[in-house]
């Protein structure tokens, strides 16, 4: 499909004129932040809320963002174990502070570590080596969620499976 000029081409539907409907995929991918942006909502007070969702083979993280005036807040962080089809909540933390990527990474790592530790205790496995392994596994699991959709054909192939998982996330703290 060749681009002839600015008007009269399929890209116009992805960026329609104000007042005209868009035919864009509900799944909005933010390459810069390596996350899907979903469930965008503007409150009566004029603040924008949205969810940032990251998916890997074994983890789904959902970040609850709030935009107030010229600041970006990170409210809640939800972490789910993922088996490729279904997800299970393994931890949730309320940050309610200015957004910083390192803070989010540390938070998610902490949740995954706690989860893995509790699982090993239940299974009667413990020890210093186990702790080191858990630390590393948690780090690897979190790194795995920072993927590029645009440059990773594996992620592109999995889009159909990821879609329902991402779109079912809702900002449940807002009534809408």
């Amino acid at each position, binding site marked *: *499909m*060749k*681009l002839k000029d*600015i008007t009269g*081409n*399929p*890209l116009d539907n*992805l*960026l*329609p*004129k*104000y*007042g*005209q*409907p*868009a035919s*864009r*995929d509900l*799944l*909005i*991918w*933010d*390459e*810069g*932040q390596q996350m899907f*942006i979903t469930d*965008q909502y*503007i409150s009566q*007070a*004029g*603040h*924008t809320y*949205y969810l940032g969702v990251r998916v890997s083979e074994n983890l789904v993280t959902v970040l609850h963002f709030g*935009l107030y*005036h*010229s*600041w*970006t807040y990170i409210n809640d962080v939800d972490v789910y174990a993922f088996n490729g089809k279904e997800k299970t909540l393994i931890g949730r933390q309320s940050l309610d502070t200015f*957004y910083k*990527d390192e803070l989010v990474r540390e938070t998610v790592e902490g949740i995954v570590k706690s989860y893995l530790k509790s699982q090993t205790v239940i299974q009667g496995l413990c020890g210093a080596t186990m702790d080191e392994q858990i630390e590393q596994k948690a780090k690897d699991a979190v790194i795995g969620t920072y993927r590029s*959709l*645009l440059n990773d054909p594996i992620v*592109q192939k999995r*889009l159909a499976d990821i879609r329902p998982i991402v779109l079912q996330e809702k900002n449940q703290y807002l009534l809408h």
Partner: protein
Amino acid sequence: MNLSESTKLTRLVNQALPALSNSSVTYNADRNMYLTTGYTSQSGHTYFQGIQLSDRLAIVCNIGRGGWGSNPLFLNAVTVYGYDGKEKTIIGRWMPSTWEFYSDNLAQRVAISIVGNYLKSQSIAQGLYVSDSDLLSYAEAQVKATTMNMNQISA
């Protein structure tokens, strides 16, 4: 821009960007930007937003002005919105991991990158085959039209 055009655009800013209707917006002709009223922190830094609109995009820059020396300007975030009817949708954001001085050039490059990535991911999701260079030139043209306000908006 004459007075009636700037009034129309201001009305559109309030319609298209309801998040700003709680703060007043003034048009700065030098920067070709709408600026929100600033908030000054205890340390003397002022935070505000610079908005540029076209009929297809809204580019919102979160700007900070340091309360010392030459009062340098920092670009803290860029959010690009597309439209869907009369609603606006975030199509991408940029938040630098370390501080960046504000420049029109930086804001423009960031916006082009956001729009280009958005178009590419949507093309992948919808099975459109558009070359990277076509996507990029379209993104560049739309951002330039927004920052240079070539497309007049009818409210």
